[in-house]
């Protein structure tokens, strides 16, 4: 079984490589590319991890799956806080997000954080899309390594 650090290091290298190899005016496309990489990963992961679960009853069930099973298997820990306004907006808070722990533990390097959160956002979006929930996922960081993922369900 590979060590967890392998995935984190690989992810950091992917972000760095995409940044280095893109032209000056294509910098913002990096985040979009990372997000779509995450999307495809999330689709496959959702299929694999729900293989032995029973069927989900409703949207809340699917969100709970994301918070517990999905987060546990990918990041080896659980989400610290899940909030919802019961109208299709969910906020997932992780106080020690795996990908950010090695970067800093305060306000340093905050401008670089969005790039490292693009792939996880895409993974959540891909997993939910495959489970039948269309949504938009954004992330924000107030203090490293804590971060909040905001999931907005698209209805209609």
């Amino acid at each position, binding site marked *: 079984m590979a060590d967890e650090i392998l995935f984190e290091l690989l992810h950091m290298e992917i972000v760095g490589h995409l940044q280095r190899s893109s032209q000056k005016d294509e910098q913002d496309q990096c985040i979009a590319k990372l997000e779509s990489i995450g999307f495809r990963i999330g*689709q*496959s992961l*959702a*299929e*694999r991890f*729900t*293989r032995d*679960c*029973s*069927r*989900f*009853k409703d949207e809340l069930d699917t969100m709970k799956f994301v918070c517990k099973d999905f987060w546990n298997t990918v990041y080896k820990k659980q989400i610290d806080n899940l909030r919802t306004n019961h109208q299709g907006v969910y906020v997932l808070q992780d106080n020690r997000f795996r990908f950010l722990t090695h970067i800093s533990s305060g306000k340093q390097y905050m401008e670089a954080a969005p790039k490292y959160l693009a792939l996880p956002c895409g993974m959540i979006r891909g997993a939910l899309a*495959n*489970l*039948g929930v269309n949504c938009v996922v954004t992330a924000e960081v107030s203090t490293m390594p804590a971060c909040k993922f905001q999931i907005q369900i698209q209805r209609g």
Partner: protein
Amino acid sequence: MAVCVAVIAKENYPLFIKTIPTENELKFYYTVHTSLDVVEEKVSVVGKNNNELRELYLGLLYPTEDYKVYGYVTNTKVKFVIVVESSNTSLRDNEIRSMFRKLHNSYVDMLCNPFYTPGEPITSKTFENMVLSMM
């Protein structure tokens, strides 16, 4: 042994259908298509269902005079349909369940192949060989 195996996507279009070579393959396609209604019905029954009934294997969908149709739906709403001959009474429920489990495992493995985009028709030789071994 199955007579026809089908994999149907979330949006209810076929990703993969394989039947034993007969003259009238179209009737199997039609049977699979009509079984989709029964799958929808089974999946959307709410209220009375408690957690123990929420499993992926749907069981016998409906029997015709020559064939029996079994269904299975994954959490990502991909449906597997297996048609077997009615005269084949030696096939027990457990065997059908294990056939579906093999199908599901192969499907998951195939999804992790970078050359496959979800939603495309299935062209993987490994998947096809696994299905052929069940027919």
